[in-house]
C-alpha cells in the first residue's frame, strides 16, 4: 500500500478473517453434523465438535442413501450429476466454438441474423420459459433420459462470444499462410485454431462444469425416474422428508458430497477459473 499504517493492515486482516469465517461456517457446521449419529441432535443444538459416525454416515449415504424416505442412493445421483455436468460443458463448448468459427472465418448470407439469434438466448433463461420448454422436450420424447437433461441446456451465447472475441485476436496471417499452404477450413480449424484455444476451452470448461453440476430446476422437471436424479435436486427430496423426521446427519453428508466436486474443481483450477469468469462475463 501507499503508506504504512499498521493499524489499518491489522483491521484488514480482521475483516478478512471475519469474512472467511462467515463464508466457511455453514459448511463447517454441515460437516460436523454429518459426523454425528442420529440421536446427537436431540439435545436441541447441533454439536460443534466432530462426532464418531463420520465414515458410517458417508458410507450409508453412498451405498443405500435414504431409500426409506423415497430418495435413491447418492452414488448413482453423483454419477448422473457428473454425466450431466460434463455433457453440458462439452456440448456447450463444441457447438459454440464451431459457430464462432463460422461467424468469424466465413462471410455468408444471414450471418448477422444467426449471430443475433444466438445472442437472444442470453435473454431467455430456462426459469422464464419453463412450461413451454418442458412441453417441447416432452413432445420430443426426451423426458427421463440424458439427452433431455443435457441437450436443451447446451446453447450458449456467452461461450460463442468468448470464442468470437478470441478468434478476432488471432492474427490473420496464420489463416492466410494456411490457405497458401493449401489447407482447407477444417484443417485450419483443427491444426491451428483448436490448439491456440486450449486455455480458453479449459477455463470455460471449469465454469460450465460447475454450471451443469449445479442445475436444479431443469433436472427437477425432466426427471421423474429416480435412476436419473441428479444430486443437487435429489437432496431437496431428502431434506423435505427429513424435516418431518430429522435425519440431518445423513442430509448433511449428502450436502457435503454434492458440494465437494465443483468446489474442488474451482479451488484446484483457481487461476483458469478466474480467467474464464472474467472473460465470459465481460
Amino acid at each position, binding site marked *: 500500500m501507499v503508506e504504512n499504517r499498521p493499524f489499518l493492515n491489522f483491521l*484488514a486482516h480482521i475483516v478478512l478473517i471475519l*469474512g*472467511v469465517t462467515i*463464508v466457511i461456517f455453514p459448511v463447517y457446521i454441515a460437516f460436523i453434523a454429518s459426523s454425528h449419529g442420529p440421536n446427537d441432535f436431540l439435545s436441541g443444538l447441533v454439536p460443534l465438535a466432530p462426532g464418531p459416525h463420520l465414515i458410517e454416515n458417508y458410507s450409508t449415504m453412498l451405498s443405500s442413501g435414504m431409500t426409506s424416505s423415497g430418495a435413491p442412493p447418492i452414488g448413482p445421483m453423483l454419477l448422473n450429476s457428473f454425466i450431466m455436468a460434463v455433457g453440458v460443458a462439452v456440448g456447450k463448448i463444441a457447438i459454440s466454438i464451431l459457430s464462432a468459427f463460422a461467424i468469424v472465418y466465413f*462471410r455468408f448470407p444471414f450471418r448477422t441474423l444467426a449471430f443475433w439469434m444466438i445472442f437472444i438466448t442470453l435473454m431467455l433463461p430456462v426459469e422464464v420459459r419453463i412450461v*413451454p420448454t418442458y412441453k417441447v422436450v416432452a413432445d420430443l420424447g426426451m423426458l427421463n433420459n440424458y439427452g433431455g437433461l443435457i441437450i436443451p441446456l447446451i446453447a450458449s451465447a456467452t461461450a460463442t462470444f468468448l470464442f468470437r472475441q478470441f478468434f478476432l485476436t488471432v492474427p490473420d496471417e496464420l489463416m492466410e499462410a494456411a490457405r497458401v499452404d493449401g489447407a482447407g477450413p477444417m484443417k485450419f480449424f483443427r491444426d491451428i485454431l483448436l490448439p491456440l484455444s486450449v486455455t480458453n476451452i479449459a477455463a470455460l470448461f471449469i465454469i460450465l462444469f460447475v454450471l451443469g453440476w449445479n442445475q436444479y430446476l431443469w433436472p427437477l422437471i425432466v426427471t421423474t425416474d429416480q435412476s436419473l436424479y441428479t444430486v443437487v435436486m435429489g437432496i431437496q427430496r431428502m431434506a423435505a422428508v427429513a424435516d418431518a423426521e430429522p435425519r*440431518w446427519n445423513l442430509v448433511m453428508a449428502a450436502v457435503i458430497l454434492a458440494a465437494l466436486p465443483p468446489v474442488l474443481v474451482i479451488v484446484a483450477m483457481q487461476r483458469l477459473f478466474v480467467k474464464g469468469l472474467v472473460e465470459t462475463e465481460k
Partner: protein
Amino acid sequence: MQTKRTVFPNRILPYLLIAPQLLITVVFFLWPAATAFWQSFLRQDAFGFKTNFVWFQNYRRLFADPLYMDAFGHTMVFAVSVTILSTTIALTLAAAAMRVLRTSRIYSTLLIWPYAVAPAIAGILWWFMFNPSIGIVAYMLRSMGISWNHLINPDNAMVLIVIAATWKQISYNFLFFLAALQSVPRSLQEAGAIDGAGPVKRFWTIVFPLISPTTFYLVVINIVYAMFDTFGIVHATTQGGPARATEILVYKVYFDGFIGLNLGSSAAQSVILMIIVVALTAIQFRFIERRVQY
C-alpha cells in the same frame, strides 16, 4: 459485424458449422418463448376441452391479482437486499484484501469457493443453521432474546433466503471488485497521499469513482442473479412460504404452471419476466459499450 480481412470461400460449410447451435436455439429457446407469448393470450377451460383467445385478459387478471403484486414486491425486496448486501460485503473484503496484498491469495482461495455451491445447497445449509429447534444461529438468536422461526414467521423466512443468496454471491462480486481495485493506478493513490488525503478519503474520492463501472456492472448482474438464479434457494427451503411470503416471480411461474396448471397465467408471467430480462440485458450492454470507449 466484424470479421476477418480474408475469409474462407466455402458456401455450405458455415451453415453446417452453425447449424447445431441454431437448431438448439430455435427448438429449445425461440420456439418455447414464442409459445409462451402465444399462450399468454389464450385461456383454457377447466377440463382442457376448449381454448379461447382472450387478448390481454391474462395480463389484466395478473395485475389485478394481489398475490401477483405481492410476488412482485417480494422479488423487489429480495433482489434489492441481496444486491446491496452482497456488493457492499464483497467490496469491503476486496478493499481489505488489497491492503494485505501479500497474503490476499490465501484469502481469495478461501473466499471464492461458494461460487461453486449450488443455490439449492446454499439454501439448505442456511436452512439448517437457522433451524428453529436445532440450528446454531437460531440458538444464538434465542440466547440474545430474539425469537426465530422461519417456518411460521414470514419476515424470518425472507431474511433466511436473502442470507443464503447473499452468501453464495459474495465470492463472485469479490473477484470482480478485486480485479477492478488492482487496475486502479498506484500513482493516483500516491499523489493523493502526498496531498495529505487519508486512506478513507482516498478510497471515496479516487478509487471508488474509478471502479464505479464495475460496481454498476455488478449491480445489474446481482439483480439478474437474485431474480432468476435463486429458484433453487426458494424451492429447496421455504417453497414460497410461509403464507407466500417468499414467493418470488420465478417461483410463481413454476408453481402456477406446474402445480397450479394455470397455463395462460404462467405464460403471461413468463412474458413479463422475459421483458424484465431484456431490459436488464440492454442496460448491461449499453454499459459495456460505454466501457469499451474508456
